[in-house]
């Protein structure tokens, strides 16, 4: 007899065998016991979680010679036929390859006939989201009022693609990802029954790699059993799946945290010598950093997958990296991952990326203990507040005609508050020269010619060149958002690099906001238009001492907030 893959051999045969879906098996079993079988079911969930298996168990349970029973015997003619796929009353339709209206019309024609051998006719439509909209419409009518003794079971991995009209006619069951512990337990059972020897660590690793899908887990076990000589070890599983061991990832992250460039480079060399895939390495590092980021923010979470990471390691890393560092680090690794697709020297790409992570200035915040970081943050906040106060005082001074192009705007306080993370740049006198204009035009042309810098061009093209000196290059924006976006480090680095290339000298980019710009204002309430403008109201004298204490207090508060005069309220007419 031909070899049968483990996932087919160990497909669950009854509700009891279903792993990790107790909420569904229990409900369906009770529905069969009480005779409350629905006419249409919709099973949704990720791959390998037991949707088709549950559909087949339900079909067997309804048609079993001993039943209808929640525990089909798997021995009688009817059960065996369902298991073999030769039952006359159970129709398994693959909607991915029978997705048209003609197939659904055929189904509608046959659905009215009574079951051939069993009690119920069961239609299992797998991957139902692949049906065309016309096919869905044709199915709708049949689903709404199916003939008696017909049960439809629709299975899908993408329930959001199933029209709401179909969903509302079905009883929906959400299959959950199976937990790693449940998968591990089942793998142990299957390995034991099949005579496969495996280390517990190896099974745990397979369970993690299966990502909640039992079919994937059994397939990996099958593969490992075929390729291993005696006992399946964790090391062997890693080799077969091309995984980078956790030890490598831990070593690398510790080296990055310690800014030990030499350790990073030797680890990469060792990895390459061991024949590991660099893409896998970057992917593992991204997942690990993400796990640390989530752990640092929210502690251990049951719903969020933390992959293989041990809590001790997460805790250790969470204490080392500052929260601001994660995203730039992950972004850097993502960039390297993208670059790996095209580069002829993958080793150099990975080394560069990891060495960048080692340099604290490459990350958003310096690498230091959280307490010191907090002290520095407090100092920074103090400085920023003082700077904002100075800027406000300067703005309050009477304006003199500036010789240089003004960089500050009419609202310095607000600007300072809006860009609180960055002190205002000191601007030297600048002039709009012919050379400057040429550099500006060349800058735009260079950016336009490079498709990967399209977003930078889109921002900068909305700006206006305002002049340059030997150190700075000024651009003015009419939009606050564009100014702020261009001012950020990633765009600034690109632009300053381009300016360096064009002018041959380092130029600092200075972005300013056109004076007429207003901060984003929320929509105002509709105001009734008045026919003509009323004259300015005259201030009146109010003797506060005549008022009761509460009213006096309220008025004083209002005056302190609004800072105005008392006037007679305008009449409604």
């Amino acid at each position: 007899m031909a070899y049968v893959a483990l996932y087919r051999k160990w497909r669950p045969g009854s509700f009891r065998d279903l792993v990790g879906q107790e909420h569904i098996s229990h409900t369906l079993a009770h529905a069969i016991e009480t005779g409350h079988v629905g006419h249409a079911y919709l099973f949704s969930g990720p791959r390998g979680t037991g949707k088709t298996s549950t559909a087949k168990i339900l079909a067997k349970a309804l048609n079993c010679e001993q039943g209808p029973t929640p525990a089909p015997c798997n021995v009688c003619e009817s059960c065996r036929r369902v298991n073999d796929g030769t039952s006359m009353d159970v129709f398994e339709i693959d909607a991915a390859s029978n997705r048209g209206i003609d197939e659904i019309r055929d189904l509608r024609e046959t659905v009215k006939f009574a079951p051939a051998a069993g009690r119920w006719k069961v239609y299992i439509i797998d991957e139902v989201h692949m049906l065309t909209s016309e096919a869905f419409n044709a199915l709708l009518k049949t689903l709404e009022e199916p003939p008696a003794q017909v049960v439809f079971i629709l299975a899908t991995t993408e329930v959001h693609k199933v029209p709401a009209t179909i969903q509302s006619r079905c009883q929906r069951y959400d299959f959950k990802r199976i937990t790693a512990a449940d998968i591990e337990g089942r793998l142990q059972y299957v390995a034991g029954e099949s005579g496969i020897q495996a280390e517990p660590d190896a099974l745990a690793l397979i369970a993690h790699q299966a990502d909640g899908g039992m079919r994937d887990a059994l397939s990996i076990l099958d593969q490992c059993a075929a390729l291993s000589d005696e006992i399946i070890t964790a090391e062997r599983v890693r080799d077969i799946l091309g995984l980078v061991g956790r030890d490598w990832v831990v070593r690398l992250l510790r080296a990055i945290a310690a800014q030990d460039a030499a350790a990073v480079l030797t680890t990469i060399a060792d990895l390459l010598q061991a024949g590991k895939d660099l893409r896998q390495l970057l992917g593992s590092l991204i997942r690990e950093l993400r796990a640390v980021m989530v752990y640092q923010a929210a502690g251990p979470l049951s719903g969020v997958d933390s992959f293989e990471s041990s809590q001790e390691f997460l805790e250790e890393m969470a204490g080392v990296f500052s929260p601001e560092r994660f995203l730039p680090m992950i972004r850097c690794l993502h960039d390297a991952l993208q670059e790996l697709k095209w580069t002829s020297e993958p080793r150099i790409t990975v080394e560069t990326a990891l060495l960048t992570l080692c340099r604290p200035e490459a990350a958003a915040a310096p690498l230091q203990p959280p307490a010191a970081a907090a002290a520095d943050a407090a100092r920074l906040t103090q400085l920023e507040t003082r700077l904002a106060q100075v800027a406000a005082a300067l703005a309050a001074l009477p304006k003199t005609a500036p010789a240089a192009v003004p960089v500050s705007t009419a609202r310095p306080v607000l600007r300072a508050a809006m860009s609180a993370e960055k002190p205002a740049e000191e601007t030297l006198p600048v002039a709009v020269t012919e050379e400057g204009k040429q550099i500006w035009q060349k800058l735009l042309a260079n950016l336009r010619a490079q498709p990967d810098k399209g977003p930078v061009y889109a921002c900068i093209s909305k700006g206006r060149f305002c002049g340059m000196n030997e150190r700075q290059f000024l651009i003015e924006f009419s939009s606050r958002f564009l100014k702020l976006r261009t001012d950020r480090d990633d765009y600034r680095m690109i632009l300053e690099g381009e300016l360096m290339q064009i002018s041959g000298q380092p130029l600092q980019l200075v972005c300013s906001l056109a004076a007429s710009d207003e901060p984003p204002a929320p929509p105002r309430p509709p105001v009734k238009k008045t026919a003509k403008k009323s004259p300015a109201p005259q201030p009146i004298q109010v003797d506060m001492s005549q008022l009761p204490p509460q009213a006096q207090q309220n008025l004083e508060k209002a005056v302190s907030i609004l800072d105005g005069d008392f006037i007679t309220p305008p009449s409604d007419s």
Partner: protein
Amino acid sequence: MKYGAFMASLRQNGLQHVYLLAGEEPYYIEKAEQRLLGLLFPGGNGLQDGLQKLSGDLPLNDLAELIETMPFLTDKNVILLRGSSLFREKKGAAAEDEKDKKSRTGRVQERFLDLLTAMPETSYIIFETDGKADKRKRLYKTVEKAGALLEAEPVRAWTIDEWLRSKLMEMNRQLDSEALRYFMSAVGMMQTISLQFLDQEFNKLAMYTQTRQFTKQDLLQVFSSIPEVSGFAMLDAISAHDAPKALSLLERQLEDGVFPPLLLAGLVRHVRQLWQAKTLQNRGVRGRLLGGPLEMNPYIAEKLGRAAQTFSEAQLHDVFLALADADYQLKTGQAGPEVLEQAVIRLCRRE
């Protein structure tokens, strides 16, 4: 007549010969239809021979003929007409056509209306239409006079109580206080409430547990997830700076297959609203008064205002820019869902 009154009138007044079941809640229409057919054909006897199901628009003459036909092999002749536009308001060109037709078929309509007011003893007609019926139509007024009408109005979160009570009574079960709170908050987050969906979920729940009282855990186990419920719950958790809950809900939505840019759009909207509320509060607009400029329900605006007070402007500004970057990176494949996680973490941080 509302659903409750309609069902009560069926019990008290017995059967009429003409019914109109109209409205935006198909669940009520379906239930009323089942009840009517149950009364017309007790135990299903005669249903096969006596019921004629029709759909779409039929000429009035044909309809009148069907009504006047004597029943065969049964004692009743029941016509169930679904999806007819007879009770819908016609607009524009369709209204002009209607006028033309009326002038030509005025006599036919008169005859049909007369027939409805004096139905044969053995005939019954049930009109079903989705959406509101046009109350100005003569046909509507005639049905109102000669028979009974059901107006199936859509259920809102604040009117779900009645339905929930009757459903629990029908199942002979109860919800404990925690489960009830959870159910009400989940329903409150649904954009449209589908009673058909909720009915199915409660049927499942009854199959899942045999205890008389449902708990919150039962609901969490059995109820199908609705992305919008998780989405709003996530935004609520962000407003409360509850990072573990917000991250778990984000994870759940990603697992449910919600497209990451959609989640990002929800986050952007929320940050924008918080920022707007913050700006308005700085200008002295507070409490329920925020509702006007924000174009929101005053109660929700007040809640948003309270949440906005816990965020600094700089924080909202930074996250807003970070989300703009995340949008570009997500759509160009330069980043994964971790950019969303980072945004959620930054928002949940108390500054």
